[in-house]
Structure formats: C-alpha cells, structure tokens
C-alpha cells in the first residue's frame, strides 16, 4: 500500500497534476496506446511516437511528402516558432528527431527524467500542432533538395537508394522516401498540412517509453499531453510484382577506384511462417563474419572490406539483399561469385552444421538485442507495426529452435530465386560496362551517368514482363487502447522474426 501511494505521488509530481485527480483526468480526445520498457538506470527516457503512415502513403508524383511534412513539423509548434522550439529543447538537453521510412514516421526523443513532463509538452505540440509555415516548408524543401544532391557523394547510400527504386520500379515500393528533385519542387504547403492532418488520428498512433518510467506513470503522462482526433489515415496501394530475369543498373562514377555492389530480391512478409527460417538462412549467407559471403569474398580473397546480407522486413513483403565493395577490377568476379553462392544455397541448402550454428547465433544475439530499454522498445514497436505478435519476441528462441532441416532446405529453395535478381553497381561505368555484360552472371546491364537516378530510366528500361511477388495480406498493425491486453490476446506467431533497425538493410522495402 505504501508503495502504491508513493507511486501515485511520483506520477502527480511528474505530470504536474494535483492529487487526487492525477489519475482521473477526463479525456478530451482519444489517447494512443502506450508501450513501456522499464529500466531503472540511467535517468534518461527515450520516447517514441510511431505513426503507421510513412512514405508509402505519398501520392504518386508527390514523393517526399511525408518527409517534408515531418521535417517541417520539427520547426516550431504550438506557441513556439522554430527558434523558440529549438531553444526550449536545447535548454532541457533533449533531442527530438524524426525518422520517416516506407511504413511509418517515428518522432524519437531523449530527455533527462527530470525534464520528461516539459519535454512531452513540446513533443505533443510537434505531433498535434506543428506550425508548418510557408517559410519553414521552403527552408526544409531546400534542405531535402540538398540531401538529394548529397546522395551522389556517398556510394553506399546511392546504391541502397537505387536498389529500392530499381527493384520495385513503377510500383509504390519503388518510390523514394526522400523524393526526387522534381517531386520535391512540386509539393505544396497545402498538401503538407493536409498530409499531417490525415496522419495524426486515433488508431494510427502509438507511444513508447524506454527508461526509468513505469507503465502507470507513462499512461498518465500520455493522457495529459496527447489527445488524438478521430479520422481515417491515408491508404496505401500494395505492390504487385517485379520484373523477371537478372537486371543490373550501373551508376557511373568515373573517378572511383572501387565499386559499391548491392543485389536484392523480394521475399515474403515479416509475419510469414517461413520468416524465421529465412532469418537463419541469412545468417549463413552474409549475416555473420563467418558467413559464406564473408568467407569467400572477404576472408579468402580480400576483395571487400564490407560484405553483408540483410533482410528489410515489411508487412507485405521483405527485401532480401546482399552487398560488398570491391576494387574496380575485382567487381565482376566478385559479382559472379556472389551469384554462384546464391545458386548453391538455393539448390543445395545448408548443411546440418550450418543450421545448428545459425540457430545458436540468432538465439544469443536476441539476448543482446534486448539488453537496453531503447533497443527493446524499438524492436517491440517495430514488431507491432509489422503486424507481429509479442510472442515473436518473447518466444523467439523457441521459434528458431523449431526450424528443422527439412524446412530450411525447402525455404531456401522457395525463397532464393537466383534466376530473378536485381543488382546495382556504383563504380567506373566505362570500365565495368562491357565486363558486366559479358559476365557469366548474365545480367541485363543498364548504364546511367554518375548522378543518374532510376527515376530517369523509364524510357530506357526494357520491360520484360513482370513476375508476381508473393504479397501477403498484411494484418492490420495493432493499435489498441490497451497494449497490455492486446499482447495477451495475440495468437502465437508462426515463424515471426523480429528484424529491427538493421542499418545495413536497403531502403527499397519497408
């Protein structure tokens, strides 16, 4: 009882409310669901506000709208203009950033526990009442246009951006989150304001806390600060297919001595029953330092420092990709070798020893992924967004262990399709073009100048027919009034895999 009273007192102090009404404040709108990952130390709280509307909701021809909207939202809200908002956040030592991806928008903040209530006031204004002035929109537009230019200076970022566009060219998934020069210039202030209005509605927003805050306190704070209007968020058109065969986009960097190579193909959705097995396969393909790609390309031949494979999961499909960064002269043989490794995996599968190894690796890594409150919160909110149950995280080790040898062989055969690969190479186009065309890897090669973007290729790209992608009917993201209740009601996921925040994953898929 004494502890309960102390807890209520803490909530009252933290929320700035007088007892005994602290927990009985009438709601003016709809309170979003709250997820809390509590850790006693350090005295820093991370707050994530996740909206289930990302750049996939950008209307065709208005790519970059979500990003422009939310980057501008950071420039003043409520009674504060940009400078006043920046000053208020800086005075607390707090950070408030926005992350926009295909699936959603995250407002992510960090603040000292002692300033949490004040910070939530600023965060709430940014979410609900951003100023979105014409002047701010213009300044942010200029920044985003600059980012489009800067993209060409970073081979890795350029390749990752290009693979998403090229793999899903002509589809919703192929549209760039950052927009293009043309679309960014065409976005109107009215479109920005409308987009914000449509996104911030009940049922489309959830809030997470990581740090020394308990669930009762967190809910009281959210109830105090965040009331959502009702409405209908923008709808998203599902992808429908990718082109057959092997295609390679070569982006010319005439003075570069090295190539950035990414190869990708689509596979099933995050909640699909085969996803755990696919995660196991990825660990053996290129997800570890002892993976086949790392062993063959980096360790034995020294062809690349950075060698990887990764899954970028979404509620409709997942993009499976691999990459490496060889010297110009090693580019073609490295590409051929990577394709050969893929072909062997698809045809012959894994060895029983590899299966055992990957299971142990993933189970151990899962422990580390839950070490900090921030990581765990990010993982759990991402899983909710992907329509996965809490069971996918809570019982991850059991799901991994349940994948047997027969299953992994079937999954590799079904989900690696070496005959249908899309590749991007950023490198010396004039040196590489002929070699790649004559390569045993047999890619259809398309060369673009160094600042060429796949958006410009529609008239040059050869349409060879499309192959349907196995698109899942996505379960609706779980946005409930009480996430604790919803977690208990979740059916155990079959084959779910928490893939969260993989920085190496390409942007081409959610």
């Amino acid at each position: 009882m004494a502890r309960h009273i102390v807890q209520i007192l803490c909530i009252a102090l933290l929320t700035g409310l007088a007892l005994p009404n602290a927990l009985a404040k009438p709601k003016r709108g709809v309170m979003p669901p709250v997820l809390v990952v509590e850790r006693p130390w350090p005295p820093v709280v991370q707050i994530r506000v996740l909206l289930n509307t990302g750049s996939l909701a950008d209307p065709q021809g208005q790519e970059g709208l979500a990003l422009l909207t939310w980057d501008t939202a950071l420039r003043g809200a409520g009674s504060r203009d940009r400078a006043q908002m920046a000053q208020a956040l800086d005075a607390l030592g707090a950070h408030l950033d926005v992350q926009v991806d295909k699936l959603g928008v995250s407002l992510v903040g960090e603040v000292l526990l002692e300033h949490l209530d004040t910070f939530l006031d600023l965060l709430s204004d940014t979410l609900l009442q951003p100023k979105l002035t014409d002047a701010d929109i213009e300044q942010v537009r200029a920044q985003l246009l600059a980012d489009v230019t800067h993209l060409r200076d970073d081979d890795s970022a350029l390749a990752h951006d290009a693979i998403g566009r090229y793999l899903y060219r002509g589809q919703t998934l192929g549209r760039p989150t950052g927009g293009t020069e043309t679309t960014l210039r065409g976005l109107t202030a009215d479109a920005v304001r409308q987009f914000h209005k449509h996104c911030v509605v009940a049922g489309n927003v959830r809030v997470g806390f990581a740090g020394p805050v308990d669930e009762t306190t967190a809910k009281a704070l959210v109830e105090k600060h965040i009331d959502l209007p009702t409405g209908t968020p923008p709808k998203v058109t599902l992808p429908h297919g990718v082109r057959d065969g092997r295609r390679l986009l070569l982006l010319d960097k005439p003075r570069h001595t090295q190539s950035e190579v990414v190869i990708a193909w689509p596979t099933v959705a995050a909640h699909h029953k085969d996803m755990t097995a696919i995660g196991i396969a990825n660990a053996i393909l290129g997800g570890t330092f002892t993976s086949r790609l790392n062993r063959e390309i980096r360790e034995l031949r020294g062809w690349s420092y950075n060698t990887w494979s990764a899954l970028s999961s979404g509620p409709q499909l997942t993009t499976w990709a691999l990459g490496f960064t060889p010297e110009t002269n090693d580019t073609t043989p490295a590409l051929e070798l990577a394709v050969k490794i893929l072909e062997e995996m698809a045809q012959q599968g894994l060895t029983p020893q590899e299966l055992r190894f990957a299971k142990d690796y993933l189970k151990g890594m899962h422990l580390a992924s839950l070490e900090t409150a921030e990581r765990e919160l990010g993982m759990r909110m991402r899983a909710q967004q992907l329509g996965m149950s809490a069971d996918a995280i809570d019982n991850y080790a059991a799901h991994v262990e349940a994948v047997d040898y027969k299953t992994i062989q079937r999954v590799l055969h079904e989900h690696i399709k070496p005959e249908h690969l899309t590749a991007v190479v950023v490198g010396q186009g004039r040196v590489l073009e002929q070699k790649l065309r004559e390569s045993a890897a047999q890619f259809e090669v398309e060369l673009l100048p160094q600042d060429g973007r796949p958006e410009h290729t529609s008239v040059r790209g050869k349409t060879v027919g499309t192959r349907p992608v196995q698109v899942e009917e996505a379960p609706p993201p779980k946005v409930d009034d009480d996430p604790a209740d919803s977690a208990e009601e979740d059916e155990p996921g079959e084959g779910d895999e928490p893939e969260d925040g993989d920085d190496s994953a390409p942007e081409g898929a959610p």
Partner: protein
Amino acid sequence: MKWWLLCALLTLTYAAQAAEPRAAGKGHAMQLHKPVDLHTAEVAAKAREAAFPEGAVRPKLLGVLPFGAGVVEQWQLPNGLQVVLAVDAQVPVVAVQSWLGVGSADEIAGKTGLAHLFEHLMFKSTKERPAGTLDRVLEQMGGSANAATSLDYTFFQETVPSTHVATVLNMEADRLVNLDLTAAAFRSELSVVRNERREVVDNDPDGQIEETMSELAWGKHPYGHPVIGTEKDLAALTVADARQFYQTYYAAGKTVLVLVGGFDPGALLQEVAQHYGALPQGSVPTRPSAVLPTGSAQRALAIDAGAERLAVAWRLPPGDHADMAALDVLTEILANGDSTRLAHALLYEQPLASHASADLNDARLGSLLQIHATLLPGKQAKEALARVDAAVKALVGPQPVTAGELTAAKNRLKMAHFSALTSVDGRAEQLGHFLVGYGSLQPLLRFSADVEAVMLADVQRVAQKYLVADQRIVVLGEMPPPKVARKRATAATKG
C-alpha cells in the same frame, strides 16, 4: 572530450532495491536508485582478493571506485595485466574488451597503418586455433566481435551471453601471445584493409577532408599520419613488419582487460587468473611524446562531390587537461543543438549549409575542436568559413556566452553522458578509453562534477585562449569549376 562518462552499474546487492521509486521534489520526480555503499563494495572486493590461495596467480586489488550508482573495481595480475570489473546484474550479457596501449601514434615513418592492420590480423590463426575460430566460436554462442584503432590505442570487443564469458577469455588470452601469422593470411587481410581505405578515404569526400585536416593540424607530430595508413605505406608492408609489431606491442603487461555486465566477479576473476596468469609480461615500449604544433594552416581540396564542405579546427591540450570541461561546454555552445550559434549562422539564418556539427576529439598528446559543415549545393565553403569566423569573433568579443547557453550546454552534456553508458559495450569503452588513453579513471569519474563547475567566465577564458587565429586549421572542400566543353562549331568547321 567525448564526455567520457560516469557509469552507474547495478550490483547484485542493490538490484532488488532498484525498482522501488520514491517521491522527491519536482525536478527530481523519480529516484530509482540508491547510491552504492562504497565501503560494502570494498569489503567484498577484499574478500575476493583474500580467497585466492597462496602460491597461485593472485590478482592484486588496486582500488574500488564509485561509479554512478555502482562501483568499478581495478585489479592487476603479477604479469602486469590490468583488469577492470563492473557488474550489472540486470543484463544477461557481458562486454569483454581488451585494450592495448598502441595506436597509430606509435608507428614509425614508412610503416603507417600497422596498428590498424593488426586490429584485423588478430582475428587470424593462433598456434592452437585455425583462422576464423574466434569469429566462429563467438557467433555460435550468440556473441559478436569487433575492434577499433585510434591515435593512442587499439581495442578488441566481444559481447556474449554471460554463460560463455570464460570461453571468450580463453580465446582472448590465446591470441594475445600465440598469433600464428602466415604470409597468405597477411596478404588477404592487407587487401581487405586497402579496400577499407578506398571505401572510407579515397572514394569518400568527407574521408579525404578528414585526412587532410589531420595532416595540416599535426604535421610531423605522431598524430599527423592517418590511422588507416597511407596507401604507399600499406602497399609496402610485409609480414615481417607485422610479426615485429606483434612482438613489440602485444603482451599481457601492456593490456587492460575490461569486463562489464552480468557476472559473478569472484568467479570471473578466477577465470582471468587462470587464462592470463601464466602469460609473459613483455617489455613496455616508451610511448611517443611531442609538443603541440603551432601555426595556422589552410588548404583548398578539390573534391568529387555535389556540394562543398568546410572543416575548421583548433588545436587543444591533451584530453586530461584541466580546461577540457570548459572546452566541452564551449563546443556544445558553438554547434551541438538547433539553437546554437553555428546552427543559427549556417543552417537557419540565410542558410548556407545542410548539416553542421562540432566535435571535441580528445587524445593523449593533444586534442582538436573541429567544426564540419556540408554546404547547400551552389554555396561556397569560403562563405561558410566567414560565418564561422564571425561567430567565433562574436563569442570572444561583443556577444559573450549567456547563462541560458551555459545551462543548455550542461544539460546536453549530461544527457550525452548518460546515453553513452546505456549499454555494457558503451560503459566498457568509456573505462578503457580513460585508463589506456590517460592512465587513470579520474578524468572520467570527475567529469560530471567538472562540467557542473564550469562558469561563464571559464567558457569565455578558454574561448579566448584556444580559439585563436594561429591555432586555426581550415580545409575547404571545393568543387572544381566545370570544364568548358569543346565547341561543336570548331569541329564542324574542321569537318
């Protein structure tokens, strides 16, 4: 200084009490930790020391220090190996980090890049284990491994489930003295490193600017050559160079082993003594010393990029100097936040840049306060330099630091302080950085207090003392003017 921070580590003793909140005044709304009882921790550590039998390898307790809400214990084996233990009973993993006091500053002319190359070579075969064993065993236990090299040190880090930490110690001790470096392994890894250099320097405009900045700022000082090495030196390195380097710098007596996470400190100390106790101490080479260079420098670098870059730096004293806390505050006031002076000058008021930041890179022989800006397309680095100079001139002259700026900077440093210590890896890294970089944990332990004690006058004093013209280094990353295309008319006339 990268706010090498205080750390609050939970001990088994206090874990049970940790979740009990208590009320406090507004501004300290929840207090979830009781401060550690240092005396109790010292008694427990001394009991562990006494538990080692006579005649066995017996670690010596050097000290128990308060560290946030917990403690950090410092030990030493008879062969000189230093051991740092920090228990966090709430996590199921352990960060194992081996820190060697050798970095690029220790390299000799013509052999640059050896320290970093060795960071890679340490994952090759030992006399007992074939190449790739360490990675394979670590990954099989669900662990991860990596390594890093700086001006002053090299460190190897593993994060593993707590149940496997003894296996990691066994492998770490093995590679510390038993590396079996073959010519083939050397060649393939050298190729990997040269590819790394192509990726992060030769084909990256920001990497080129950073390398130029080091060269200009430090010249012939031990910090003047790139950590990754020059391409010329890398191409000329031999396996004999590598073997010599290993014999010189890798030994138990030159190593600091940092362990942070969920473990029993008594049992873990026994494991350390077992695996490391018999290793030879090795002789400790004298580390280089040098005085700070002086003089300003400026270079325009042609970059292959879509927008120009600016880097401005000032030389500062070593990272354990008494002025570092005030310099940390000054760095924050200059650029780290959207309301700061350089944010205003470069990003928001008639914007010139899309990104701007400031860093204080602390090191053993001298530090650098660096400002970086990526310009908007079409804007010139020279314009941005003029704005930076004007902001600095105003700060040391007519527009001194305000009380509001000081408070905000302190709060930001406090935040960063805690954030960097959230994970066991982060905590281990802070401990290793200070102990190996400066030979003491004191600069880390007093960091918060030092920052809190900084007054407005201190910030003004260090700004006037260090942000001076004859210590300012500038690199302008400029885009070459577009080439004039040959006129078709000329060709047509010829035709």
